[in-house]
């Protein structure tokens, strides 16, 4: 990015309104409003799915009908009317894309506005990008290079077509259809998402990156991601998203499943910046996500890193099931809430195997009248001899009207386990701000600096180029929160 581009972004950012609030005009294929068995059949037919997948969806739908929306999270919001939502929207596929030149220029323009360099630069920096626009992948690059290594990186629908045996084996194996209300909903109506398979012993040579974007008015967004790292494989996966400004609430209920076999490692990083609503809390995305990984084999490792700045309501607990002996789970999180935003986020670390280890570092930043909660479960099963967990939950308050809450749950059934929990709450002090101001640093920038300092040991876990975006995002999302 050139200097003047960067300046422009900063300038746009300083105008205060959500800068990613624009709408792309693309013809869509829409499902009828509302959710019935027919909707599920429509989606499945639209996607030309095999019988088994339709049955799988229908099973989820029938269970979902009997389930209730959970209300244990520390958030309050008008419950979405699930019959008011359009469950499927896809940009009309004009033709198959062989290169980016063939992609709808409207779509490319959108990404340009976002400052997402989906072009040669990105190629040179070694990132393969699988863009999910609304619900259907419209461009995939680097397939060849990855293909030579046997790596599969494609849209979920393509995987269903080309690798049905893999999808069938693993889909729902980590997050069962009926795990919770939203995973059931997602299982019934998921439109598309990403699929990734790294074969035995292969180290994926580049970060795999997906940009999600909600683009149709009043469209629910139900992504499904499945990542499988076979024995001894390694992959670093990036997910980032921003959304256009809306008046109505938009529901987002994604499911992400990760499987790490023996000696495999998966690093999953997210920057989440859905539209948070305006200052009064109107509009904004409801983000109810189920993310879970299983360290299925010995010595495997799954690491979640997330920077959450967007959404009106967030409900999200990326978790690890540590089944293999000596397996490792990590969760590094920064959650920022401003204005009227509400976030209830954290993780679950389920220790089943021997000598399993988990680390949780959660940094919550609350400003405005927002509410920010950490909710974490560390569970040590009977057989998890020598399991260890370390949790650190720090909260930073900006102003006096926001709230920070911590709900750590520990269930330990093995005496040899060691579980440590540390928590702190602090405020951005007048002293710190004045000190920065005296050095010529404007208040918004000073808050950005202080907050980034506060989050340092989480941000350090993000891949380099992601970290730069994320840092900027932290600054932007807290603009005007003091004074």
């Amino acid at each position: 990015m050139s200097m003047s581009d960067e300046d422009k972004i900063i300038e746009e950012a300083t105008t205060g309104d959500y800068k990613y609030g624009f709408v792309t005009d693309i013809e869509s294929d829409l499902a009828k409003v509302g959710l019935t068995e027919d909707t599920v059949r429509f989606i499945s037919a639209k996607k030309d799915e095999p019988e088994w997948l339709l049955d799988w969806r229908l099973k989820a739908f029938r269970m979902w009908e009997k389930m209730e929306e959970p209300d244990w999270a520390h958030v309050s919001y008008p419950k979405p009317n699930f019959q008011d939502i359009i469950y499927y929207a896809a940009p009309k596929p004009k033709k198959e894309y062989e290169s980016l030149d063939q992609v709808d220029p409207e779509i490319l323009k959108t990404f340009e506005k976002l400052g997402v360099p989906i072009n040669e630069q990105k190629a040179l920096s070694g990132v393969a990008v699988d863009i999910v626009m609304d619900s259907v992948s419209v461009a995939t690059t680097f397939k060849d290079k990855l293909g030579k290594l046997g790596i599969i990186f494609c849209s979920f629908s393509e995987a269903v077509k080309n690798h049905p045996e893999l999808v069938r084996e693993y889909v729902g194996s980590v997050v069962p259809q009926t795990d919770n209300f939203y995973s059931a909903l997602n299982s019934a109506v998921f439109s598309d998402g990403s699929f990734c398979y790294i074969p035995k012993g292969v180290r994926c040579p580049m970060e795999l990156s997906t940009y999600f974007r909600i683009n149709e008015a009043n469209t629910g967004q139900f992504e499904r991601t499945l990542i499988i790292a076979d024995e001894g494989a390694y992959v670093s996966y990036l997910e980032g998203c921003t959304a256009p400004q809306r008046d109505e609430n938009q529901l987002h209920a994604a499911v992400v499943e990760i499987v790490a076999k023996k000696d495999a490692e998966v690093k999953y990083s997210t920057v989440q910046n859905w539209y948070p609503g305006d200052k009064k809390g109107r509009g904004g995305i409801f983000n109810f996500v189920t993310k879970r990984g299983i360290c299925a084999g010995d010595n495997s490792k799954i690491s979640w890193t997330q920077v959450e700045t967007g959404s009106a309501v967030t409900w999200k607990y990326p978790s690890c099931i540590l089944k293999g002996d000596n397996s490792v789970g990590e969760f590094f999180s920064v959650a920022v809430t401003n204005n009227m935003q509400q976030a209830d986020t954290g993780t679950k670390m389920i220790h089943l195997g021997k000598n399993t280890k988990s680390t949780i570092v959660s940094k919550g930043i609350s400003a405005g009248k927002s509410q920010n909660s950490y909710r974490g479960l560390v569970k040590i099963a009977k057989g998890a001899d020598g399991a260890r967990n370390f949790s650190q939950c720090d909260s930073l308050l900006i102003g006096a009207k926001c709230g920070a809450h911590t709900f750590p749950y520990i269930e330990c059934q093995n005496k040899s386990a060691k579980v440590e929990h540390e928590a702190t709450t602090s405020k951005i002090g007048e002293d710190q701000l004045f000190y920065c101001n005296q050095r010529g640093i404007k208040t918004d920038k000073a808050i950005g600096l202080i907050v980034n300092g506060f989050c340092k040991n989480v941000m350090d876990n993000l891949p380099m180029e992601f970290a730069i975006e994320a840092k900027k995002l932290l600054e932007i999302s807290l603009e005007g929160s003091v004074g």
Partner: protein
Amino acid sequence: MLKINGLKAEINGKEILKGLNLEVKPGEVHAIMGPNGSGKSTLASVLAGREEYEVTGGDVDFEGEDLLDLSPEQRAGEGLFLAFQYPVEIPGVSNINFIKTAVNEVREYRGLPNLETKEFMKLLKEKQQLVELSGKLANRSVNEGFSGGEKKRNEIFQMAMLNPKLGILDETDSGLDIDALRIVANGVNELKTKDNAFVVVTHYQRLLDYIVPDFVHVLYDGRIVKTGTKELALELEEKGYDWIIDEFKETV
């Protein structure tokens, strides 16, 4: 350069500065001494623009501008620097990143482009050497876990990086060992030109052996009650403040 006229300021309804006058010209070094609680740090804070203090009277002219009209960051941009009596810790923010941000913000205020990384590193090295600040400290979080003396040295390092027109040093000498004192003083002397000025708040004549002031003022009860040359500092060291306070009380 700086002209303070009848400055009155209060905090929490308590009047601390009670009509203070002071004029500083380019190329000058002014020392301000005075008993604890007399208002020295208050003066420094008010000049730097700390919001908790309410200015209730008087005016301050800085380089032809109404200083009191400017925000703290604008004052910094205009070339005013305060070395804090109690420097603040900012966890997780590296000293280098902090000063780089500051340097570029001040440059932006002055309509200059950001410093190229290469130029910045050169400046950094040079100024680090000036105050003999170790590379380790430069990479650590701003003031976090620094010893008292290290914090003070870091203030002078930042001042050197920002190269202000007016540097106000609030008890930078307190807590310094003899070597550090010499280093800090050398730093100031190196930075001194005929175009900039320094106001040095101190309790000890010792610092003034190194940084030789053109004027020494005694601040008492929110006012400057006596002004002299560097010999006044020696006299104060010997006799304390009582005689000046008595003298002042007689005239009121």
